[in-house]
């Protein structure tokens, strides 16, 4: 937890230049998909995009979309073959050699992030990897490194949390008073600040503070209970009804 890295994206500082999405393509060897980075959509070849929104005074707001690198990720929990992993450094990574292509990770991700290689005959799931290969060399993510305004900032998650709280405290008029990602579905390694409620910028709303894997966890915990209670019940009924039938038969004979 101590050395977990993360990103702080402050949409009030973002000018919509789209440099982050271009740098991401380069750092991850992704195909070019659009000449206008602001019009692009997440896809198997696009890990992050910047989109334009309109604020309450008609001002332009720019916001990014990327994998949130959840602390207790839904994708990790749902994958039947364990192809997803939350690494101690922060990135949530996908191992294509395990994947069977059930797409439960896509179905379940609360932020609608994972994308699929639909046109391939041996498709992979694709999403932002928080530049895990760069982190290993002690480098920040490509998007944070290239950002000209500091809207995307890379650092230790704990430091970023403090920084975000600080900014809201010092400029209460600028910010909507909430750090997105602090608690959403158990928290994420990507934190977001904004001047408006976050669902207006396309972020998932109504997420519980509880990590989503807890929801299925409760059902799975019932499995051994169902098995043992079920065996006892079936065994008991089997014996009882058999015995009952026998007694009935014997009584019939006696009469």
């Amino acid at each position, binding site marked *: 937890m101590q050395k977990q890295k993360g990103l702080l994206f402050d949409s009030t500082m973002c000018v919509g230049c789209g440099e982050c999405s271009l740098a991401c393509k380069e750092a991850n060897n992704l195909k070019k998909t659009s000449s206008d980075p602001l019009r692009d959509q*997440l*896809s198997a070849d696009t890990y992050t995009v910047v989109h334009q929104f309109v604020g309450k005074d008609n001002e332009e707001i720019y916001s990014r979309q990327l994998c949130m690198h959840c602390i207790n990720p*839904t994708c*990790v*929990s*749902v*994958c*039947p*073959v*364990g*192809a997803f992993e939350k690494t101690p450094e922060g990135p949530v990574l996908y191992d294509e050699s*395990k*994947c*069977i*292509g*059930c*797409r*439960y990770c*896509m*179905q*379940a991700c*609360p932020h*609608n992030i*994972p*994308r*699929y290689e*639909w*046109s*391939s*005959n*041996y*498709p992979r799931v694709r999403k932002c990897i928080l530049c895990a290969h760069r982190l290993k060399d002690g480098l920040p993510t490509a998007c944070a490194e290239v950002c000209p305004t500091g809207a995307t900032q890379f650092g230790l998650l704990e430091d970023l949390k403090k920084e975000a709280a600080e900014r809201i405290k010092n400029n209460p008029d600028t910010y909507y008073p909430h750090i997105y990602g602090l608690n959403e579905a158990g928290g994420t390694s990507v934190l977001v600040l904004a001047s408006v409620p976050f669902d207006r910028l396309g972020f*998932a*709303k*109504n*997420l*519980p503070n509880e990590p*989503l*894997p807890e*929801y*299925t*966890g*409760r*059902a*799975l915990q019932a*499995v051994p209970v*169902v*098995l043992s209670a*079920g*065996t006892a019940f*079936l*065994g008991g*009924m*089997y014996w009882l*009804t*058999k015995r*009952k*039938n026998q007694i009935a038969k014997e009584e019939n004979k006696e009469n």
Partner: protein
Amino acid sequence: MKNGILRHLTFWKIIGAIIVGFGLYSTYLRVTLGLGATTNLSDNFPWGMWIGFDILCGVGLAAGGFIICAISHIFHIKKYEPLIRPAILTAFLGYLLVILGLLYDLGRPLDVWHAIIMWNTHSVMFEVAWCVMLYTTVLFLEFSPIIFEKFKWNWLLNIVRKISTPIMMLGILLSTLHQSSLGSLFLIIPTKMHALWWSPLLPVYFYLSAIGVGFSVIIFESYLSARVFNKGLEMNLLTRIGLFSAIFIGVTFLIKLIDLTAYGKLGLILANTQESILFLAEILIGTLIPVAILLNKKLRETTHWLYISAVFIIAGFMFNRLNVSITAISGINNAGYFPSIYEIGVTMMLVVLGMWAFGFAVKYFDVFPVEEFEENEEDEILRPDQKELLAED
């Protein structure tokens, strides 16, 4: 009259052959071009009809197998024994088709064996995968005596007979887990599903409604077999089965009603949205109409009313599974989805293959006990059909 039957059968055979032909063509496209070109799935809507229909409905409709096993072998209520074989056959074929359907849906079908050695016990999908594998094996063992009998492989027959009780129990336990776990799959997307269907009780609903529909499938099959093969089941057994079906479907509905009330979601039912309309349709078709029919003693003791109620329950069940997997998800995520012609083609082919296999098995193995079907019952069950055929000539 003979001619009529023949004409009837050839007509359906031709239709079936056309469906299978198109299904094979769809298969060819699916294999060569991949999921993107052949399905209407998208990043916004990654699970479609193959999950909603082939898997969710397929497994549910196979529930009759474990229910009848429980009634006759665990509770030792002997009079239902004639139902065992057709129910197990349906379940076995159903599961084989579910596995086949799954292979179409998986992006990497040849890697499906990964689930055997790469474990993630936190995943409901992992539980589902293991239930499918184990229960299909169990169903094979349960059905195998019929095959061994036919070919007089007595030593094998003796072995399966010896282990039959624990195998039955295992089958019931696995079914319980599997039916409910299909509902649990959706527990993890509370914010991506419409509130009319998402509930922490999803696994309970899936389990109870599967039992309800399992009974109705038995009625449905028995009626059809009586028409086509002159082999079927006694009416008074079926009447009781119909009542059980109504009870489970009714109880599922009552719990749902309490659930919706407790969470203040009742208003959503009358919200007049696409979701609310489809929800009402599901309840009307799958619960209100058939339960009303079945609770009426006179109606449920009439062959065709009983059959009609079974058709309603089965249709309503499929409606529910498709609502959970498609309606509840597509609207909220702004993902318009309607299956592609190839998705439909494959699904229809699987259904036809299932019916063919069932017909084949009934013809060549002792699935329905013929002796149950003396003059008087025949009168009762065959009359409408005979009339129809006679009229056709």
